[in-house]
């Protein structure tokens, strides 16, 4: 056997915990100057670290200092509360034994903690806390003074909805969590925060509704998160890639949303949300395939409209997946399937095109992908130039030059629009990739090849799972009660159960009496004047 088949030598495994705790967790010194020197030393004397010495504070019998990061802290709080109260408070008779005792009663701030080692101190400092030192104590006080410039809450730029909340998540994890808390006002909404990233120390918060979410899934999530030991987490996408069930797939097994109402809705169905500081995209899992065809608005509109829209989205999915592939297959293998008049029209256009259909389609699709990529990266001001170049040069000129046929341009355009109309970006980009595979299979075997492609696709999809939940559920495995909210969207009042795979044993979400709205028959119609019907 060639060496290719040989087993890899087992990796030398370092325990994750060993790597996690860096060695520099030494205790603070008693001497103020020494402590300040350590701070200066460790931060490389960074200019945005402000060290304010309070030499004549009556409160402290000794010298004191406050340390904070400019920009991450609210300067007003520091000036008006921290510094003022420390400077103006009454002098003490005896020196208190600990920092906590000394400050607690005098500093009107909510979150206050004594810090004894450098590791915690730096973490607090870097996250916007103000650290109070005093000479003669081997501890410092960390007070919560986070602030600074942040993006305010805006309308989400992805997942827009006509009817529904206008709030979108921001980059601040606290704001994001509070937005969901405002929607679900229930003590059962539990959160757990951990820090991930050796260098960035990014806050990551798990949120779920205790009692609805399955404990085993949350436990699984925790263990997966604990395994992550990387330099930095810059976006929730980083986390997503480390905790996915299957890495080698074109399909997303986690959902991400910029909308608090979407997150709340998913929490209520038993999913968990994963907030990552610095990212307005909140991860949701476990997800199923059909979820990517759903939009928040489906639930606010009447069910038949929503069902029709969902069917449309399935159609959109298929158009963007096999649009060009169908054209290639039909024009190179199955000309008999095209009505004569249409075939003649296509043949007339193809007459002057020097390439086979497949090459023609490939050229146009790649061109379109280039245009799309350019459109995203371009500054907004030049964006319109791209559309002119795209529409005129590529569209019109290519057709006039006889390089591509107009039919092909139509196909590519429909495919592109369909791709943009896909409600979930995650599925849209997977489809973008798969489209090319389908084009290849259509060019080699025609419709037969496309069907082969579909079989492989379905097999692959049914093998996927998201945190253990089968990706194609509730269609396969089939859960009759959950069909109400798949490609069809039954009336809300008929949707009595939470998704079976997500919510474990606690599935009922509607009271027995809550059913189809049916006013009493005797109620009748209201008459114009109150006394008329007597």
């Amino acid at each position, binding site marked *: 056997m060639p060496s290719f*088949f040989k087993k890899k030598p087992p990796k030398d495994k370092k325990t994750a915990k060993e790597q996690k705790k860096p060695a520099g967790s030494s205790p603070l010194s008693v001497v103020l100057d020494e402590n300040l020197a350590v701070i200066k030393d460790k931060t490389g004397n960074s200019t945005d670290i402000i060290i304010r010495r309070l030499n004549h504070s009556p409160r402290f019998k000794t010298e004191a200092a406050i340390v904070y990061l400019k920009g991450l802290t609210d300067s007003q709080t520091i000036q008006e509360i921290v510094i003022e109260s420390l400077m103006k408070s009454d002098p003490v008779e005896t020196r208190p034994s600990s920092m906590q005792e000394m400050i607690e009663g005098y500093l009107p701030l909510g979150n206050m903690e004594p810090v004894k080692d450098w590791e915690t101190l730096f973490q607090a400092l870097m996250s916007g806390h103000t650290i109070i030192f005093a000479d003669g104590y081997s501890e410092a006080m960390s007070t919560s003074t986070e602030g600074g410039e942040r993006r305010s809450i805006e309308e989400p730029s992805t997942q827009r909805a006509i009817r529904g909340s206008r709030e979108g998540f921001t980059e601040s994890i606290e704001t994001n969590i509070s937005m969901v808390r405002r929607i679900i006002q229930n003590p059962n909404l539990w959160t757990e925060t951990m820090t991930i990233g050796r260098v960035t120390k990014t806050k990551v918060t798990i949120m779920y509704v205790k009692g609805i979410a399955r404990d085993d899934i949350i436990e699984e999530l925790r263990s997966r998160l604990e395994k992550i030991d990387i330099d930095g987490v810059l976006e929730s996408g980083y986390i997503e890639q480390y905790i996915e069930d299957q890495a080698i797939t074109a399909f997303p097994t986690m959902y991400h949303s910029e909308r608090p109402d979407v997150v709340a809705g998913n929490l209520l169905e038993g999913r968990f949300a994963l907030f990552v500081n610095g990212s307005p995209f909140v991860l949701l899992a476990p997800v199923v395939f059909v979820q990517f065809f759903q939009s928040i608005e489906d639930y606010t509109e009447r069910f038949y409209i929503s069902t029709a829209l969902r069917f449309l989205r399935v159609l959109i999915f298929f158009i963007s997946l096999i649009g060009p592939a169908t054209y290639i297959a039909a024009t*190179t293998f199955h000309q008999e399937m095209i009505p*004569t008049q249409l075939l*003649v029209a296509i043949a007339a256009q*193809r007459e002057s095109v020097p390439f*086979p259909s497949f090459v023609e389609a490939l050229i146009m699709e790649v061109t379109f992908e280039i245009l799309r990529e350019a459109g995203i990266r371009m500054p907004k001001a030049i964006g319109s130039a791209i559309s002119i170049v795209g529409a005129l040069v590529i569209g019109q000129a290519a057709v006039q030059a006889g390089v591509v046929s107009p039919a092909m341009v139509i196909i590519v355009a429909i495919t592109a629009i369909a791709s943009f109309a896909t409600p979930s970006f995650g599925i849209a980009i997977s489809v973008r990739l798969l489209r090319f595979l389908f084009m290849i299979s259509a*060019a*080699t*075997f025609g419709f037969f090849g496309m069907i082969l492609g579909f079989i492989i696709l379905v097999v692959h999809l049914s093998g996927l799972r998201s945190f253990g939940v089968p990706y194609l559920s509730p269609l396969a495995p089939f859960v009759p009660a959950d069909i109400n909210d798949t490609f069809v969207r039954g009336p809300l009042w008929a949707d009595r159960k939470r998704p079976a795979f997500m919510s474990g044993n606690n599935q009922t979400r509607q009271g027995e009496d809550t059913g189809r709205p049916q006013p009493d028959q005797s109620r009748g119609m209201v008459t114009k004047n109150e006394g008329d019907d007597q």
Partner: protein
Amino acid sequence: MKRYMAVFLLLIMSLTFLSGCWSKKELNDLALVSAVGLDLDKQGRFVGTFQFINPGNVTGGFQGGGGGQGNAVSVYSSKGDNMDEVSRRMSTKVSRNLYYAHANLVVISDELAKKKGVLPILDAFDRDATFRNTATIVIAHHVKAADLVKTLTAIDKIPANKMIKLLRFSERVWGGTMNVMIMDVIRDLTDDGKQPVISGFNLKGSGETGKTTQSIMQTTPESAPQIGGLALFKGGKLTGWLYGSQARGVVWTLNKIKKTDINLSKKGKKEAIAFEVIRQNTKISAFKIDGETHLKVKVDTEGNIGETKVPVNLKDPMVIKQLEDGFEKVIEKEITSAITAAQKKKTDIFGFGDAVHRSQPKTWKRISDKWDDTYFAKAKVEVEADAFVRRTALRNNSFLSDVE
């Protein structure tokens, strides 16, 4: 194990790329055949005339195609002893693969249909994977099939399309013709209780002028294909033709009439009252009376008054009843004359044999061989029509009543 699977899958997947593009045919490499015409030459060989679509000239006004400059179709012929040879010899004249999936018309000359019949031809069409069984088959009457295929047509640019649409339209509103598909003919040929009948086409003007665009540049094209008559077959060979009301009688009996127009003479004026048939149902049946087989045609039809040339009191139900009786007689006469004509030719194109087969299977076994020649030709056929005037269109009594 996983590794083996991965390698195995990789090998399988590479097959995709090794296969090349199996049976791929680019549109630019196809010659789209729209119609096939078949004649006999003097040596008794088949002459196939193929009508090819020039896509660029059909769509018209499209850049790169030279819109509408040339003819919508080009026609080439070749000879051979069988269909396959005819088709393959075409490669000496046509630079592309002949593609039959859109050939919807087969024209067979009456000479060929008489001398050799359709039996030696149809197998090739039936067997070929691309050729459609649903292609229309017609007989060229008093004209060579080649000339019909060569004739350019005006509004429908592809002549084959024009001829098929003509047949379908005429079948729908007039009823004297039928759109017969290859599979219908094959079914009738294999059915011992029914013989095929195929619509005929003739050519107005000469084949020579029809070939040029000059012909269709005029408001009245010099040459144009026209529907004419129904060809009766027996044993796969053409035995005779029926025209006009006799042809329509055949279509009535076959229950293929969709809409048509029945005229009644009244008050000395010929064809004074028109009856627009809007729906009908015709049943043929066979039954025994005193050991003798009787055949019966029963027509149920319904329609509107289409026209009155003489004043009639259409408000009166009795008048309507009289009219209905009159229409029934006309229909009965048409059908009877069609059946008599077929009996003369000794070919049961109506499927009475099938009716006998259904009602008296045992007798049928005995007589099926001699059905056409002996039994059908002498059989007594009872024809009964039931007409019903549903409405009188927008008017009841015509303004003509007031004119006098």
